[in-house]
């Protein structure tokens, strides 16, 4: 069976019920999709299947013959990052980084679908993604910034939303 991953065609050797997550990581050595819970609850393995965000851990590869998969590696390069990657960098939207790939793929699909900077709509779009560092405020700020069409100065970090004067020091 055949799979196109980040615009590169691959003939897949893994057994048909192997998860897409295992195929990406073990067979193709594409490491951005993360094995978190491996039962669909955490969102860390989310990739785009023909443009739609999908849990790689829940998808048997045999169901995807001929599909086109996009992972973070297909979004941009360190020298030419996509808007979502730039926003996550500028807004410091990654802490440990484990959820970041899944968050960015869900954000990419949300924005490609015409998503706005509406806070509630972004929350809905990212509802299946758990950040154990609880960095949601900055993640949502980053997605909203892309939706607004902000440009990002990657030499500086954006001021933290809602974190001004915490601690009461004058």
């Amino acid at each position, binding site marked *: 069976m055949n799979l196109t991953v980040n615009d590169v065609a691959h003939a897949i050797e893994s*057994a*048909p*019920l*192997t*998860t897409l997550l295992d195929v990406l990581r073990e067979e193709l050595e594409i490491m951005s999709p993360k094995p978190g*819970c*491996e*039962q*669909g*609850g*955490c*969102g860390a393995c*989310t990739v785009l299947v023909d443009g*739609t*965000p*999908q*849990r790689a*851990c*829940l*998808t*048997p590869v*045999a*169901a995807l013959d001929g599909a086109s998969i996009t992972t973070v590696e297909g979004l941009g390069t360190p020298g030419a990052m996509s808007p979502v990657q730039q926003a996550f960098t500028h807004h410091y939207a990654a802490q440990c980084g484990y959820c970041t790939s899944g968050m960015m793929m*869900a954000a990419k699909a949300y924005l490609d679908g015409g998503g706005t900077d509406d806070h509630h709509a972004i929350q*809905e*779009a990212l*509802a*299946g993604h*758990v950040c154990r560092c609880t960095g949601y405020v900055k993640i949502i700020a980053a997605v909203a910034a892309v939706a607004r069409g902000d440009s990002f100065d990657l030499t500086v970090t954006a001021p933290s939303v809602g974190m001004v004067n915490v601690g009461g020091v004058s």
Partner: protein
Amino acid sequence: MTQATEVLIPTSAAEAASAFGDGSGVTVIAGGTIVLPEITYGRLKPEKALLLTRAGLSGVTRSGTTVTIGAGTAVQDLIDQPAPLGPCAANVADLEIRSQGTLGGNLCAGQGHDAPRGDLQGPLLALDAVARSTGAGGERSEPLADFLEDRGNRLLLDVSFEEPAAGAFEAIDYPHTHEYTVLAVSGARASDGTLRLAGTGLADHARLLSGDPETAAGEVPLDNDALASSWYRAKVLPVLVRRVLAELEESA
């Protein structure tokens, strides 16, 4: 995957029915959201898997006032249906899971003691839906309540129901990675005025309720599991029944 699994990928409903046969030894995989973790964690080692992705069983069609929903339809594609079905579908998990999980998988799921299963059984019972399935003895159509008793042995093809005059859905959720639906009550008023209520999250599958909040907790089996105690279920069920009745009254 240590053993070789025979994987069948039918490309039509007829092929799917023939590949399913009487269902013995066949693991059906539609969206995969329930079955794949079972395989990943080694709790299930299918000998023969039937992958329904390309079987063409999805889609919502309308003929007059009759709505028919193919078993392969994604839960997400039902969120705009009128209450109780739409609000119930929208309350399932998150966008990605709803887009991957199917009506058939949701209706046929076995009981999950640590995660809610079968959310859509409730609204479709309230809608007096008919389930069309294949398996031993061939194709048959029957009330969903009957189908649910035998759902592990059948391949669901579609469900159909009459558009209700009014509907309501109320759920109590438990915050987890998703908002888990602990208990939910669906209600529908048919065009002839008949009121039907059904509960999900009670026990092994959804069940019809009389619609009397005073007797609701005694009408159905109530489980004690990781999601809620039977005591809690007995306390909350009448509250949800009252809310659904009030909503249906408002829309009268």
